[in-house]
């Protein structure tokens, strides 16, 4: 069975016990993203301290891949600057476009921590969107948060 290559234990752990779930105050931006092909949804808030991501809080519904992805992302981005976090997002995107190429995954292992477990998802084009939804939401929310906080300054 190939299922195990997609549903790594790390993914199932994040799915069952998501990190950072729930919507919290304070926040500078809130976004709502959906995956229109399947109806997966996430509402995400970003709280910045200067240009450091102090908190990402979220609520959502969706498949194990989309829910585990947002949880693993939470672990990766808290405490990073927006630029660093989005850089990590680019690497995650690269992983998702790797079509299961082990060499690509190997090179990204240190950077992506738990999120490297999503390498198996890259073999299933229909599921890549599920894994990327939360990263798209983060990109959107942090851009808005930055512009809100620069307006406030």
């Amino acid at each position: 069975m190939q299922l195990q290559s997609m549903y790594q234990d790390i993914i199932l752990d994040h799915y069952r016990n998501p990190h950072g779930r729930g919507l919290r105050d304070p926040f500078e931006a809130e976004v709502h993203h959906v995956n229109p092909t399947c109806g997966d949804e996430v509402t995400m808030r970003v709280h910045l301290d200067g240009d450091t991501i102090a908190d990402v809080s979220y609520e959502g519904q969706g498949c194990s891949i989309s829910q585990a992805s947002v949880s693993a992302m939470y672990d990766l981005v808290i405490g990073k600057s927006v630029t660093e976090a989005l850089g990590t997002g680019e690497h995650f995107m690269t992983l998702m476009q790797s079509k299961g190429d082990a060499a690509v995954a190997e090179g990204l292992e240190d950077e992506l921590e738990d999120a490297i477990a999503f390498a198996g998802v890259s073999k299933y084009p229909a599921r890549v969107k599920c894994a990327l939804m939360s990263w798209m939401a983060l990109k959107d929310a942090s851009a808005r948060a930055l512009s809100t906080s620069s307006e406030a300054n």
Partner: protein
Amino acid sequence: MTQTVSRPAGAHQVPLPLDVEAIRADFPILTRTVRDGKRLVYLDSGATSQKPRSVLDAERWFYENVNAAPHRGAHQLAEEATAAYEAARATIGAFLGAPENEIVFTRNSTESINLVAYALSNAATAKEPEFRRYAVGQGDEIVVTEMEHHANLLPWQQLCERTGATLRWLGLTDDGRLDLSDLDTVVNERTKLVAVTQQSNILGTINPLGGIIARAHEVGALVLVDGAQSVPHQKVDVTELGADFLVFSGHKMLGPTGVGVLWGRYDVLDALPPFLTGGSMIEVVRMEGSTFAAPPQRFEAGVPMSAQVIGLAAAADYLTALGMDRVQQHEEVLTGYALEQLQAIPGVTVIGPPDTVARGGAISFTVDGVHPHDVGQVLDDLGIAVRVGHHCAWPVVRRYGVPATTRATFYVHTGYDDVDALVEGVREAQRFFGVVPAVTEGGTN
């Protein structure tokens, strides 16, 4: 939700009306394997159906022997291509019990519906008075239902936005049926058109169209029936149906992609202005202005999808040879069996009618604790193709409070082995995700 946990396990396998093994041999794709050598269990005909060899042969025959643009040119190929194209129109007409001049070829159901929706708004500004009869404008109402596929919802929403008309809809009952309690107020003197599906692509419900059509005609409204999920699966005779338009897609009835049908009552079609304009649909063209051909040519602008039309006629012939009544009975037996087996699994909830009364073979369900995408992934790993998501009927899943469903759909090559594979696959998904509910013999979940 209560459900009986009985274990039919093979007990209810009455002989199927169709010879599944013989039919499977007609479908080349069913010989391939998927996901490391597994037999393909194709339970996604509702999205698009597989094609029998006779359909593929018909398309190849057209290209290899008579390929030319129909209705253009005077050479022999053009004549033969025209004859083949028009013979296909006659075949589709006969399939529906309609005269051939009421058959318009389009790209698919979506385009057929858009054709009517645009014709109704074009009617308001038509320079020809005879085309204004069905014009839709401010103060008019269009009625749909909450059960519609997006293809039979968005064109009407857009028509209302273009014209200032108001969109109204019939709601749904908890058991997956149309709520007709307010039919007489929702469909009223202001109603210009009622658009309703004959079979729901997500709930499987077969709608009681008679009463709806009677009420619509009582107030002078037109009725468009979305037959995308009914025409492939049951006998549909347009005279018995009594509607004004019927739309369906070739690719869901064993035919090629890229061809669909709009059937319209001739007097109604004749009173409508065109949707797309260009070659083939004209009478006289001058720089100052043009006049249009009579239906059906008025609605077939441009060189048509000839080979696909020929393929669609072959699909209709294939279904006719099987017998549409038997096709329907076949699916009904399988649907009854599948509903029984699926609902016997603790944690599985069918979204839609729980039995085969006025119901087709689209079975949507949820599995407690396992998201439909994950159910679909486990099934895919076993070689079983189903559809997951909101099935282009987002308001329906919203109405039933679920984010998405897993949907299995049946067709002429579906057998008990396919349903058994599905049922076992759902159990496998529960095991994989560790949500096998504790079963006490004879208890409920």
